[in-house]
């Protein structure tokens, strides 16, 4: 604990770092302008509250800057969840880069019109793209619904169809059973992996995070992951097949209504 030290001095000494982390987490999550300033102010207050309790709790087991980064990111996520619910860029936006993530968040999360989003992005120096170019980019992204439900009147609700027909219920039960079987096999395959490998699978294969991020999260050499990740994928697939779950079964379970593009 740092009680014997002056936590205020430590805070001031790391203020530039705190601001850098706050700015980066805002940038990554498409928050800027007044909203970013608000967050920075809130992050400072969070670290100062209760006589710098967060800093006094620091024991020296981690690097101070890493610890502060964790506290700031945690505060950002909690605050974002309180305000807008849980928001994540779509896989398509992730694939198309930061501008796509910004645009998606402004249009689908914040409810901006495209022209308004374009204006804000250009004013903030985030892009020089025209509205037409942004429209082209937006067209590559899936349509998403607002994070908070909109109010619907009784009339709207009355017009909704019943949730399940009897024959659909039987089909859904069968689908649930097949899905549970696939899940159990995958769960078992994942359980055989080390926690580190599970984290790699989760970050890269499930969430589509970059190899660089996965490498940083686990302190691994990035280049080695380019070979390791395909091996992990192949291992998981083999284990599922060994457990009697075929690719066709997974496809059938997950792919109802989809087209087959397997190799």
């Amino acid at each position, binding site marked *: 604990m740092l009680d014997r*030290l002056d936590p205020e001095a*430590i805070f001031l*000494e790391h203020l530039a770092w705190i601001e850098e982390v706050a700015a980066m*987490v805002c940038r*990554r999550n498409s928050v800027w302008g007044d909203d970013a300033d608000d967050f920075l102010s809130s992050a400072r207050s969070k670290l100062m509250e209760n006589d710098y309790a967060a800093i006094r*709790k*620091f*024991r020296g*087991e*981690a*690097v*101070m*800057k*890493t610890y502060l*980064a*964790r506290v700031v*990111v*945690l505060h*950002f996520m909690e605050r974002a969840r309180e305000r807008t619910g849980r928001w994540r860029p779509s896989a398509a936006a*992730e*694939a*198309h880069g*930061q501008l796509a993530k910004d645009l998606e968040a402004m249009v689908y999360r914040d409810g901006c019109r495209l022209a308004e989003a374009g204006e804000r992005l250009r004013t903030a120096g985030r892009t*020089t*793209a025209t509205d037409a*170019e942004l429209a*082209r980019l937006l067209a590559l992204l*899936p349509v998403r619904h607002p994070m908070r439900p909109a109010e619907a009147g009784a009339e709207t609700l009355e017009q909704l169809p019943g949730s399940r027909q009897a024959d659909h219920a039987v089909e859904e039960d069968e689908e649930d059973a097949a899905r549970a079987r696939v*899940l159990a096999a995958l*769960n078992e395959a*994942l*359980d055989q992996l*080390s926690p*580190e490998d*599970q*984290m790699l*699978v*989760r970050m890269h*294969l*499930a*969430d*589509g*995070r970059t190899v660089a991020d*996965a490498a*940083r*999260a686990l*302190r691994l*050499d990035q280049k080695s992951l380019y070979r*390791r990740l395909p091996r992990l*994928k192949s291992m998981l*697939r083999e284990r599922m097949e060994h457990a009697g779950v075929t*690719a*066709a079964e*997974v496809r059938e379970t*997950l*792919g109802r209504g*989809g087209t*087959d593009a*397997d*190799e």
Partner: protein
Amino acid sequence: MDDERVAALHDGRLDAHERDELLSRVLSDDEEYDIFAETAAVLREIEEAHASSPPSSAGADPMGVEPAADVAPHANIARGGHASDDVIPLATHRPPTPEGAAEPRPAEPEPHAGSRDGVISLDSRRRAPRRPWAMYGSIAAGLVGLGLAATLLTRARDTRLDDPAMAVAMLEDGAARGPAAGWNEVVGSSTRGGEANGKQLDPEPLNVQLGAYMVDIELAAASHDTSVVRLSRTIIHLLGQVTLGDSAAKFYGKVDSAAAANPRADVRPLLAQGREAVRSGVIVPEWLELGIWAEAARTAAARHDAGFFRSRRTRALLDRASTLPEMDGDTRAALKAVRAAIPVGGRSLDAKQWDELRRDIAGLLGAAGKF
């Protein structure tokens, strides 16, 4: 979750047992996982930004401090100093970690967390992981190559080749052998490998050229080839014609300055930032990845590297390229020739066939990139 323990996990300061236990806990809690992954991403981006910043004085650490691994966590506190010396260790300061191994810890082991006041001790019982269906779905779909729209994206991401570093990593020995002989030969025009001639290119050949030069500079930088300066200037020129190219150009400008000042300078961190900026700024990446693949493939052909051509990424790239609607007749014919010439399955090539393949790929580059 104890914030400092997780921070220590990010710092590589936990022993293998503690690390596994904490990772399991993070994996079992979606919200905790989000915070963990986001913190890692924030740290990486800041570290890369610092690594690319010019040092404040000759030979100094870009952040002006020692790497954390060499700092006993309590050393400064014990002597009444501040914790400012506890810094984010830059990736460039640490030797690569062997696969699966934890990073080295500080010389003096820390007392166990559970013995400290106010520390939440780790639960020795491993929680049953809670894995949401969405996560299972993504993994399972990725394993079988499912054709759903959402999973198509997963597959596309898995086989995309819009990162020149990935293309270089696919080469046997990666960049370790440096550029192949004749790698900067003229392909169809004097602009190849030299100063661009100032003409405005259409977006498709522009992206092909950009991708090809980005591979060239990766290979050149790895072997401290003096062509790094010239290549960076060519890339900057090309980026000048890309609507969203300004942010990427600034990183290649730094590469230019660093390599011009010191040919032995390690510009790879700057190149990493440039790559990321290009990927963020290029809205239609299909032609960029064609250029990346073709240039890496030319190097692979020169090295007689059959593995490169048999990789899943190569097959996927060629499939995607063959369906590009904007492709002209010359490029389509060149692509067809390359597809016919590459070694597939158990087929092997003799020296003459490798040379023909290299020329076919050069022809594809010339046609697609309008060099």
